């Protein structure tokens, strides 16, 4: 059951839903973020977030605390909070990067967020009560090229980052005053800040392509990523030290999401979201869009609601 909604004529660069999926923040190749609310089955624009000086590259909406974080090519990020009048008020976050920000994600507990950038580093930001502002800490080594995608592990400490240096890495973002000491995971036991827990190649050896999307499974024990060589890879360090890769027949995928512990949904240049199972090797299950009509535009994101109903954004 797919619904199609149109949001203007420009490609949608990025989007984020609120907790109950009644509102969505969208940016369409511009400096502005528009917030739409679902009113009677149709989406109506209710607010405009206008603060960035150049193209907004990524948005994330914190479900519990109802805050929005946006990052843009102007090397800044803003955290937006709703005040008593219902207006969204921005707070600038100094990321200290000298290239554009590419992707942003709130941590599961929403006390931190990570920003990937073209400056080959990840900025992990947390709120410091004393000075009443957001502080950023950098993860630099050994990332060698633009960070293209990020995903948080449910323990709020581990962060997976895909990059255009053909590798997918898992880092620890443990911050002493903010996080509780994390328990041991299949990704490692000692987790000081910026520790590289694991570095994984896309595909085998030094083949591969840019990593476009990365996602942890709901338990955090598996990590899936998709790369530009039309491959899907899944790492399961508890059961197998080497990640499993499937070189698919389709055009490359741009985004990946675990639906449950054993299924992943991917979407990309084939205009169609697809389902793969990752139990015992990665296997194609089916295409999720059964209609024959070709929708225009490549898919960038797949978002899952609580019940496995897929809401797809097509630009």
């Amino acid at each position: 059951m797919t619904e199609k909604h149109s949001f203007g004529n420009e490609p949608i660069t990025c989007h984020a839903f609120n907790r109950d999926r009644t509102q969505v923040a969208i940016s369409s190749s511009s400096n502005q973020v528009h917030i739409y609310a679902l009113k009677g089955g149709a989406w109506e624009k209710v607010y405009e977030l206008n603060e960035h000086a150049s193209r907004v590259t990524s948005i994330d909406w914190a479900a519990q605390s109802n805050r929005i974080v946006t990052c843009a090519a102007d090397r800044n990020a803003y955290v937006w909070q709703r005040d008593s009048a219902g207006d969204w008020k921005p707070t600038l976050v100094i990321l200290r990067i000298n290239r554009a920000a590419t992707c942003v994600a709130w941590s599961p507990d929403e006390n931190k967020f990570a920003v990937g950038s073209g400056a080959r580093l990840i900025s992990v930001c947390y709120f410091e009560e004393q000075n009443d502002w957001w502080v950023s800490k950098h993860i630099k080594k050994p990332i060698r090229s633009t960070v293209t995608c990020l995903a948080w592990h449910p323990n709020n400490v581990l962060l997976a980052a895909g990059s255009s240096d053909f590798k997918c890495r898992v880092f620890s973002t443990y911050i002493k005053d903010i996080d509780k000491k994390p328990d041991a995971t299949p990704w490692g036991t000692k987790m000081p800040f910026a520790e590289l827990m694991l570095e994984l190649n896309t595909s085998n050896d030094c083949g591969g392509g840019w990593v476009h999307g990365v996602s942890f499974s709901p338990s955090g024990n598996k990590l899936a990523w998709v790369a530009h060589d039309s491959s899907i890879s899944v790492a399961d360090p508890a059961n197998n030290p080497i990640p499993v890769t499937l070189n698919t027949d389709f055009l490359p995928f741009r985004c990946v999401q675990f639906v449950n512990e054993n299924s992943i949904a991917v979407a990309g240049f084939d205009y169609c979201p697809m389902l793969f199972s990752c139990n015992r090797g990665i296997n194609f299950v089916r295409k999720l869009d059964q209609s024959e009509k070709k929708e225009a535009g490549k898919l960038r994101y797949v978002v899952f609601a609580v019940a496995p109903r897929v809401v797809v954004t097509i630009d």
Partner: protein
Amino acid sequence: MSKSTLSTQFRKVDVDEYNEDNYTEDVDQTQEDAGPNESEVNSYLMQAKNLDALQVVLKNPPVHSKNQQTKDRALELVIRVLLSFKSSDIEPAVKSLDKDTIDTLMKYIYRGFENPSEKSSAVLLQWHDKASEIGGLGSIIRVLTDRKRV
């Protein structure tokens, strides 16, 4: 006018070399591929066992080798094998290969396209047609993105 303003020598300086954060490819020092076994392939061809020749010639592609000659020799060998097939035999031959071998075959086909000879392009196109039916667009994408080149 002073002559030095006309000098364009500065355009030949590679500024990226001097950037300390420059991305350098991972140098893979481990393997030196020798490429497919020539004598084995030749013997299969003489016995008109094209299918076996194909399997052998696609088995050890010199992807890690830095020696351009090794790669060129391998390419010549592969093209010879591909040209030795009759049109009707191409489809069953492709069907007998596994996924990774089809990717390798695609890489050779595209390299073969780079240097067209009298009738090689037509035959290569037939191979391309059958290989892409099975390998899909993904195999062609991998020709473009895979850094292990034949």
